[in-house]
Structures are given as C-alpha cells and as structure tokens.
C-alpha cells in the first residue's frame, strides 16, 4: 500500500481517537470549576457532590487523553520526519511551550485535585481544580497555535530548504489562530454541557438522585445554551469568514462552490456532492446569502473550485458533507438547549420525558460535531500539510517502510478499539452507580 496514505490513515486514526478525550476534559473542567466554586463559597452539599462525581469522570477521561496524547507528541518525528525537518524551526516551539506552560500545570494539579481533597484546605483544593481547567485550556491554545500555523502560516521565511522563524509573535498569532481557538474551546463547553445534561436526564428519567440531577441539569443547560449560541455567532460565522478570506480553495470546497457564476454566491443548504465531476445534486440554496455573510454584499464574488489548479484542491465530497453536518448539529444544539432552557424556566423540564430522552441520546452528538469540524479543517487543507508551502506527500518519513506503518496502524486500531470500549464501559458503570459515595469494600477500590 501507499506509504503516504498509510501514514495519513494512522495520523487520522490516532488524532481522531485522541481528540475524543481532551474536549470532554476541557468542557467538564470548566463546569467543575463553576460547581466547585458554588460548593465551596455557598457550602452547598449538592454542588460538592456534583464536583466529586464529575471529577471521577474527568479522571478517567484525562487518563485516556494522556495515554493517547503521548503518541501525538512523537508522531511528527516517527511518521512525518520530512515535515519535522521542514517546519521544526517553527512548529516545535508551540509543542514545547504546551509542555512547559500547560501540561505540567494540568497534570500536576490534577493529581492534587483528585487525591488531595483531604490533604489541603478547601481554597487550595478549589485552586487546583481551576488550574486543571486553565492548564487544559492553555494546552488547547498551544496545540491550536501549531495547527493554525499549518492552515495559515505566518512569521517565517523559507531558506536553507526549510521554513525558518522570522517573527515568533506573527507565527503564534497567525491569521486563523484566535478564531480557531475560540471556536474549538467553545465546542468543548458544548460537549461538557451535553454530557452533564445527558447524565442528569438519565437520572431524572430513572427518578434517581433527583436533587443532584436537577441541579446539574440547570448548570448544564445554562452553560450549554450560551455556548451553543456563541458557537454559531460569532465564532462559527467568523471562522468561516476567516477561511473564505485566507483559504479560498477550502471555502469553495466546504460550501460547494464548484462552478463560477455571475454575481454573488448562493448558500447551499442541502446537496449531495460528487468529486468527479465536481457537481451538486438535489441542491437547495439561498441565492446571494453566502456572499452577504462573508462580505456583507449579496453580489460579492467568491472564487469557486474550478478557478484553482486541479492538483491544489481538497477532496470535495468529504469536506462538504462533514462541514454541512457539523453546521446542522450546531443548529440542533441551539434548538435543544433553547427548548430545555424554556422548559426549565416554565418548570416543566422534569416531567418532559421526550426532551429528557433527547438530552440523554444527544450526549455523543457534540463529539460527532467536533470530529466533523476537525475533518473539515484538516481534509480541507489538503493536498497541503502546510498551506501553500509543503505538500502532504512530501512530508512523510522516508525511512519507515510501509509494512511497518501497516503493523502500527493495525495495533493502534486494536488497542484503541479496546480502550474506547473500556472507557465507555467504565463511564457508563460510574453513571449507573450514581453520585452517592460508595462504601469501600475490603480488597476493592
């Protein structure tokens, strides 16, 4: 098999699996900060219980996140050595900065947060929880700095056969960095909120731990509603505009602009795309809307796919479908959270079994949206590994035989399948066990 394709498959597999866990960690960590703050300042038993219970879920999630994250730190070297040589002067710095400014903070204080409850004052314990949230957010910041640089490289000059650093701040605050950071960070809050709301809905449906469930539900719905709305506007909107302005091929691909038309571009609401030939089928669209959203003018021209060299455009079907489904899910989150907030306000949520069931079964959906967003961003950047600078096919390790990559893919696949199943089994078990403190049996944990 093709060594480049195998290396890409392995990267996709390992990053997508890893990327299940950090968003849950970050989102939950901030919800925990809120719960622990109320629990501590108001001395509220139920908030303390929320803190304790979700901290356990955070711990399992964090462990799998760390385990799968180690792979990512080294995989640029193992599978993408030509990439590493080309961008090392710039790309290594944010990874190292992540270690120094973020990983140490989150890992160190997570230990204190999980195991130090009885060893330190309430204030110090609260602070350790805050540092876990801050650390994991900083971690996301530096990783997104690195990723954004691949999308919209800045602050470099190409000389001596590689990209060399010209201006550190330009490289860090490259054109897509801030909006990507806010868009991604907000998605983690949606993830955390839906997880908490879904678990609360489960207890309400079962009529168990009612006080705990009602309080968690309120917290989750408030955070979830705000985060879902912000995700569409301004973050999603601005992120799409940034893509339109800085990566026009990607924008044309995700929006389904395949042929040049006179006047403004239409917003495609629904279509089934094909790559060869680039066509949309069964299209439902709003004329001029896309141009208006990007430039505030219904007649503004937006470049379409046929205006770019054929070997410099991303896969069309995958980017279009993942982007549009992500947007649909985003709309769905707003709808569900508004409905839940309204029912909460009217005091009808506890009896609304349909809505509770929807909340329960929606738990995985923010994760689906996050993965789709990731596919949109990364596949949309193809065929480049660094946009307009280095092609993916020129970035792979030349000394690693394809068979060895195949072996590692198979092993990663099996191990991750096993870990994923165990993670679900353990988390579901924890939820079923409930938030009441368990009595410790002799010889168990």
């Amino acid at each position, binding site marked *: 098999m093709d060594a480049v394709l195998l290396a890409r498959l392995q990267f996709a597999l390992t990053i997508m699996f890893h990327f299940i866990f950090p968003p849950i960690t970050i989102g939950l960590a901030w919800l925990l900060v809120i719960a622990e703050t109320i629990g501590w300042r108001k001395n509220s038993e139920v908030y303390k219980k929320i803190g304790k219970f979700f901290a356990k879920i955070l711990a*399992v999630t964090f462990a799998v996140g*760390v385990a799968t994250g*180690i792979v990512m730190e080294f995989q640029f070297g*193992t599978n993408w050595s030509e990439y590493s040589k080309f961008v090392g002067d710039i790309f*290594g*710095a944010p990874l190292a900065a992540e270690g120094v400014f973020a990983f140490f903070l989150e890992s160190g204080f997570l230990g204190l947060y999980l195991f130090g409850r009885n060893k330190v004052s309430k204030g110090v314990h609260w602070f350790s929880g805050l540092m876990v949230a801050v650390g994991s957010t900083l971690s996301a910041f530096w990783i997104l700095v690195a990723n954004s640089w691949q999308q919209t490289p800045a602050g470099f000059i190409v000389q001596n056969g590689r990209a060399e*650093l010209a201006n550190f701040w330009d490289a860090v605050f490259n054109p897509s960095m801030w909006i990507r950071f806010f868009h991604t960070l907000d998605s983690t809050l949606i993830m955390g909120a839906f997880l908490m709301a879904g678990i609360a809905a489960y207890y309400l449906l079962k009529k168990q731990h009612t006080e705990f469930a009602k309080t968690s539900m309120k917290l989750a719905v408030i955070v979830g509603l705000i985060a879902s709305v912000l995700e569409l506007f301004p973050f999603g909107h601005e992120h799409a505009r940034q893509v339109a302005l800085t990566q026009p091929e990607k924008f044309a691909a995700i929006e389904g602009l395949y042929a040049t038309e006179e006047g403004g571009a239409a917003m495609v609401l629904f279509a089934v795309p094909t790559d060869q030939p680039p066509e949309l089928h069964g299209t439902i669209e709003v004329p001029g809307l896309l141009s208006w959203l990007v430039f505030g003018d219904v007649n503004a021209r937006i470049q379409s796919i046929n205006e770019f060299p054929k070997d410099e455009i991303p896969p069309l079907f995958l980017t279009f479908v993942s982007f549009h489904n992500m947007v649909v899910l985003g709309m769905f989150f707003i709808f569900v959270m508004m409905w839940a907030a309204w029912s909460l306000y009217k005091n009808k949520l506890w009896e609304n079994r349909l809505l509770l069931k929807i909340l329960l079964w929606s738990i995985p959906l923010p994760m689906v949206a996050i993965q789709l967003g990731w596919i949109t961003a990364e596949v949309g950047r193809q065929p480049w590994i660094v946009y307009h600078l280095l092609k993916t096919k020129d970035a792979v*390790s030349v000394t690693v035989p394809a068979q060895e990559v195949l072996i590692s893919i198979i092993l990663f696949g099996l*191990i991750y399948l096993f870990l994923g199943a165990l993670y679900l089994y353990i988390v579901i078990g924890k939820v079923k066990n409930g938030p009441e403190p368990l009595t410790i049996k002799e010889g168990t944990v």
Partner: protein
Amino acid sequence: MDLNIIWFLLIAVLIIGYAILDGFDLGVGVLHLFTKDENERRININSIAPVWDGNEVWLLTAGGALFAAFPIVYATVFSGFYLAFMLLLFALIFRAVSMEFRGKVDSHKWRNLWDWAFGIGSLLPALLYGVAIGNILKGIPINSDGFFTGNFISLLNPYSIFVGVLSLTLFTMHGSIYLSMKSEGEHRVRIKSYTPKLWIAFVVLYVLVSLYSFFEANYLFASILSNPLFWVFFILLITGIIYIPVAVNSEKFGRAFIASSTTIASMIGLMSVSLFPNMVPSSIDTAYSLTIYNASSTPRTLETMLIIALLGMPLVIGYTIFIYKIFKGKVVLNEDSY
C-alpha cells in the same frame, strides 16, 4: 557558550528530570509484578498516583524541546527507531490507563489484567530507554543524506540490550527506594530487602557496560579524562552509588533517594559529556553524525525557546515541589484512592 550548547544542556536537564521522576514510577511498576497482596498492590499504585502524570510530562516536554531545538535529531531518530518507538508508546498507553482502570470493576480477573498491564507497561519503557541510549552511544547507521539505514533488528544488538538491562535495574532500584519511603510494615521490609540486591546487580552491570563500551564505543573515551566536567560527574556518581546502601541500611530512605537520583543524574551527565558535541553519532562515518550545530534550529528559535524555558520552568519546579510536599509521607488509602 552559544545557544546550541545551552540547548544541549537543557535537553540533558529535561532528560535527567524525566529519568529521576518517572524513573521511580517505572521502578514501582516493575516491583508491582512481584507484589501479590491486594492491599500492597494498592499501596504501590497509590504511591505514584498523584504524581506520575506530572512526571511523564518531563518526557513530553523533552520531546517537544528536542523537536523545537534539534528537529533533525527528532526526525531522524524517531523515524529510524520506528517499531521500537511504537512498542514504547503502546507500553506507555497501557501503563497510563492501567492505574485508572484497575479499581473500576470489582473483579479479581479485571484487577489482575491491569496489574500486568501496569507492570509490563513500566518494565518495557525502563528497558527500552536503555536500549535506545545504547544505540546512540554505539552510533547508528546514518548515511550522507542524513537518513537512518538500519532496521528494528539492528537496534536489538547485544551491547544495547546490555545497556537496557542496566537501565531497567537502575530504575527498579530507584523505585524500591521510593516505595520504601511510601510503604509500611511487612510490605516495606520486603521492598527494602530488594534494594541491596538490585544495588549489587546495578554495580556489576555498570562495570560490565563500561568495559563493553570501551570496546564497542571507544570514541567516547577519546579525550574525556582531561575534561573537568567528566571528573565532577564521576565523583558525584561514585559518591551517589556508595551512599545508597549506607542510607538504606540506616533506614534513611529520603537520603537514599537523593543518592540514587544523583546516580541517575551523573550517569546521564557523563553520557552527555562524552557525546558532546555529537547528539547522534553515525556508525557509517563520523562526518555524518548529527551534532548540536548541524541538527539544530536557527538561533532565533533557540533564543525564543530559551525565553519560554526561563519563564516557564521556574514556575513548574515551584509548584511541583509544592505538590510533592503535600503528598509527602506514607500512603494512606482513603475514598479518593485508586
């Protein structure tokens, strides 16, 4: 002293930090394979539970710093050691989740499974780090284009495996001292009895590896005796090694831990002194070796990274000490424990 030398030193410091801190975690994991009692097994795991994750960050940061400061080394070695590296990653994955998963299901078989994962997931890295170092010391086949031309089997040469067994023994001894600080009663008596045996094995192996190195990697000894830094590390190393059994005998485990940490640090120090200015010697031709100059980033990047390190690391060391102080003393199992 130029930026390249500073970064060579800083990477060495990060590796030393990792070896000392995660070294005892790995050692505890190896000893876990020889612990049968459930309560003692829980003490083992909980002795490192609050800190192992932070300790492993030293490895991640060393990796990131290597990528940033010496990208050619990062790219060449990691792709060259591909399968060995994957084996290391799989081991670290299982070790990381084993502690968290182990106590989550009340079944003997389940716990047994994760005890093995924890033990093997600790033993393999402790061994593989030594194998990797052995290969670096001996030199690896790097051709004129800077590509590694060896394979997985060529990495498993007798010399490197010997160094691997040495590092495994060293980390296990280091872990036994740490666990002696953390455990009580019969558990501690048994763990404590391992230390002198491991110490003897370590000393014998170290002498043998040094002799073997003289034949296998003679260049390491070329001009070393005239280097004052060599003597500094050498004296520290001998002092550390001799002091370990003295301190263990008088039950001063904290001091013994400092002694074994000094031993680890000076071993890596000696290795760095003898490699310098090479980072990865080529066994094909020394002209192809990766050095701190031909494998580095630009001065601008090295300078930026230095600022990041100077801003961040004092803070890291500060709160790491703060957290260790909180968890000082014997392990007491409570509702938060694994």
